[in-house]
């Protein structure tokens, strides 16, 4: 039994960190689930209309969050790698996975939320502004669906909230005054949201500052992780499928098919991939889906080569002809006889592919050909931050740092895996 920090300890640490910092929010999400279930019973149509992406997102993350610890204990035997030694790359990658899965729990702001631009625009990291809460519309008797909607907007923040005012400073005398860039405003008492006869004024803390539209950089960074990881996973899976199938066909059939596929691969290899990617995106338009597909079909070449050469080698082995003789179908041969053998080099390749795809996605977003403006992406954050380079270094520094660390950790993990599987192989 080796001593020292294991990966599993890091996972527990992160879990308890999030759980202790976001205890209240997690409770809110849980009560939201309960009341949603109640609404499903009483008022089905309005429950379905209220089902939005962010709601499902929140539900899924809180459920996965609660299941994380039990699952790691139940599947202890299968998840042996969790008991290997922790190093920096693993720690960062697990942090990424946490951020990817639990984004709504880590930050309960809306990534697109912006209000009172003159106050919140381009705030440096660690700055605070006053947040005044106004009273909601007159509270008459509400139906069950309306109370749920109220609860929903309180817990899952919408991208616009008229009941919040950000101010540089607030003066509390018999009247409430607030200042926005030196300009004084007065609020009527009856509009203020009060608690125990005091107006509700909080400090809003922006840990990484805000961007040019006053949006919280930390939240955008968190949600940007999702774009990068989703695009990466999608493209890698697509490349995996294309590479395995084409490589298998080329190695299995041989002859003319092999030559044809080889030439086909050659075009993709003899080509600066980014030109191909932007050509296709330019011709077919860029959206989330097209970016995934294009990055997927531009990364399968090395997999093809690995699979092909391995299949050629395996074809000579006795167990291969035996499995053919007992009449296994081609798919069974591929999945039962070939994939387990080639898993090691393929896995190493997939890790590098993932880092390439994340890089390509960020570069495309930087060039304005990325996944669109629906979600923030690291690349587009850097590209829009470049316009404010003289005033706001944090707009570039944080996304850039996260991107560099991600790529570095993937690259070094890939190298480590490569060394583990094949000490003589150079990666």
């Amino acid at each position, binding site marked *: 039994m080796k001593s020292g920090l294991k990966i599993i300890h890091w996972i527990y640490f992160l879990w308890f960190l999030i759980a202790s910092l976001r205890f209240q929010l997690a409770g809110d999400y849980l009560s939201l689930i309960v009341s949603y279930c109640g609404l499903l019973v009483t008022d089905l149509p309005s429950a379905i209309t209220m089902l939005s992406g962010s709601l499902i997102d929140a539900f899924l993350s809180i459920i996965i969050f609660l299941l994380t610890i039990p699952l790691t204990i139940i599947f202890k035997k299968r998840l042996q790698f969790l008991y290997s030694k922790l190093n920096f790359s693993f720690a960062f990658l697990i942090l990424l996975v946490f951020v990817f899965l639990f984004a709504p729990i880590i930050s309960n702001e809306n990534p697109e939320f912006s209000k009172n631009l003159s106050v919140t625009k381009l705030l440096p990291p660690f700055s605070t502004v006053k947040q005044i809460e106004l009273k909601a519309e007159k509270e008459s008797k509400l139906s069950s669906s309306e109370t749920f909607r109220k609860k929903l907007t309180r817990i899952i923040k919408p991208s616009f909230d008229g009941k919040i005012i950000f101010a540089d400073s607030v003066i509390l005398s018999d009247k409430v005054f607030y200042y926005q860039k030196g300009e004084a405003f007065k609020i009527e008492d009856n509009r203020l949201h009060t608690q125990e006869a005091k107006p509700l004024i909080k400090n809003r803390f922006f840990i990484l500052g805000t961007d040019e539209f006053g949006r919280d950089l930390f939240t955008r960074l968190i949600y940007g992780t999702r774009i990068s990881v989703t695009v990466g996973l999608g493209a890698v899976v697509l490349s995996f499928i294309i590479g395995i199938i084409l490589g298998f066909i080329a190695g299995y059939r041989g002859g003319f098919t092999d030559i044809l596929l080889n030439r086909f691969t050659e075009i993709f290899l003899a080509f*600066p991939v980014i*030109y191909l990617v932007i*050509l296709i995106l330019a011709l077919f338009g860029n959206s989330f889906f097209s970016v995934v597909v294009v990055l997927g079909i531009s990364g399968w070449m090395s997999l093809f080569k690995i699979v092909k050469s391995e299949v050629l080698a395996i074809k000579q082995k006795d167990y291969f002809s035996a499995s053919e003789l007992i009449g296994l179908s081609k798919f069974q041969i591929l999945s039962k006889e070939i994939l387990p053998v080639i898993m090691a080099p393929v896995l190493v390749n997939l890790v590098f592919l993932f880092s390439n795809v994340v890089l390509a996605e960020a570069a495309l977003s930087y060039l304005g050909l990325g996944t669109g403006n629906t979600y923030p992406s690291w690349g587009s954050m*850097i590209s829009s931050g*470049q316009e404010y380079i003289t005033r706001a270094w944090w707009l570039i520094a944080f996304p*850039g740092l996260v991107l560099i660390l991600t*790529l570095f950790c993937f*690259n070094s993990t890939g190298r480590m895996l490569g060394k583990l599987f094949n000490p003589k192989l150079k990666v």
Partner: protein
Amino acid sequence: MKSETGKTLIIRFLSSLLTLFLLVSFLFVLIRLSPGNPTDKYISAKLGSELSEKIAEKFSLNQPVAEQYFAFLSNVFQGDMGVSYNYRLPVFEVIWEYFSFTLVFVAISFILQISISILLALWVIKKQKRWLENFFASSSLMVYSIPAFVLGVALIYIFSVSLNLFPISGLKSLDYDNLSFFSKFFDKLHHLVLPLITLTAAGVAMFYRYIKESMDDVLNQTFIVNLKASGVSDKTILKKHVIPNAIRPLISVAGVELGILLGGTLITEVIFSLPGMGRLTIDSILSRDYPLVIGCVFTAGTVMILANFFADIVKLKIDKRLVKGILN
């Protein structure tokens, strides 16, 4: 042996031509598959169908696909890629104007990458310090992981915005035309420092790893021990035996690296707004100038294929034993 080399080269050349041909076909397929065609613009309730039919005839869109394909092929190989919408000039003229800059830019960066990484690897090997090797091993992976656009923007922030040492973008100062010949040269150089660092850093890191690893490999082989035992000086061993052997695997990587460079210059030129192929490509894409886009992609592909071909020739020149490996 000689005839075998010649034969291999011819086959290699033909396969390059085939790849080029497939590339053009691939472009044609992409264009045909993409939504929309030139007649769409003229279809409206007020115009009637005559105009769009006329346009279709003019662009030979009503002819069979095979015929269009051959027309496309012959046009491309005659150097006629159509007329750019934005520049109102033949595509090749536009590309040629921008291509020369990229060629020089990439060539300088390539030479810098190779020379810096070889010198660095030699220096580290000569010092024989464990911590130095470890430091460069991990920092090279770190540098390799920095995306060009992050590095470029960070450099702009540090050296242009904060320290005000280098210009933020462009290739010429405002008073460029009034300068003497030498100050013109230095002016351009001054503008190119940051872009060159941006484009070169990742490649240096990558080449350094390759060279270092293959040098370590060569140093561990028995013939080096033999040479040492025969009293050959360390310097001669390094110069005459280690470097030539270690540089061999580098050449095949160099072909691939050129592709990475062409991709990297695309982003670098956009960051620093330099007048090169990369920025031309991005501009033409963002302004939907399709003939120019296709011309740019075709040029990049052709350069890549040519570069790989020449890399193979150089490989053959250095080591004749590789004849068999080239065709695979």
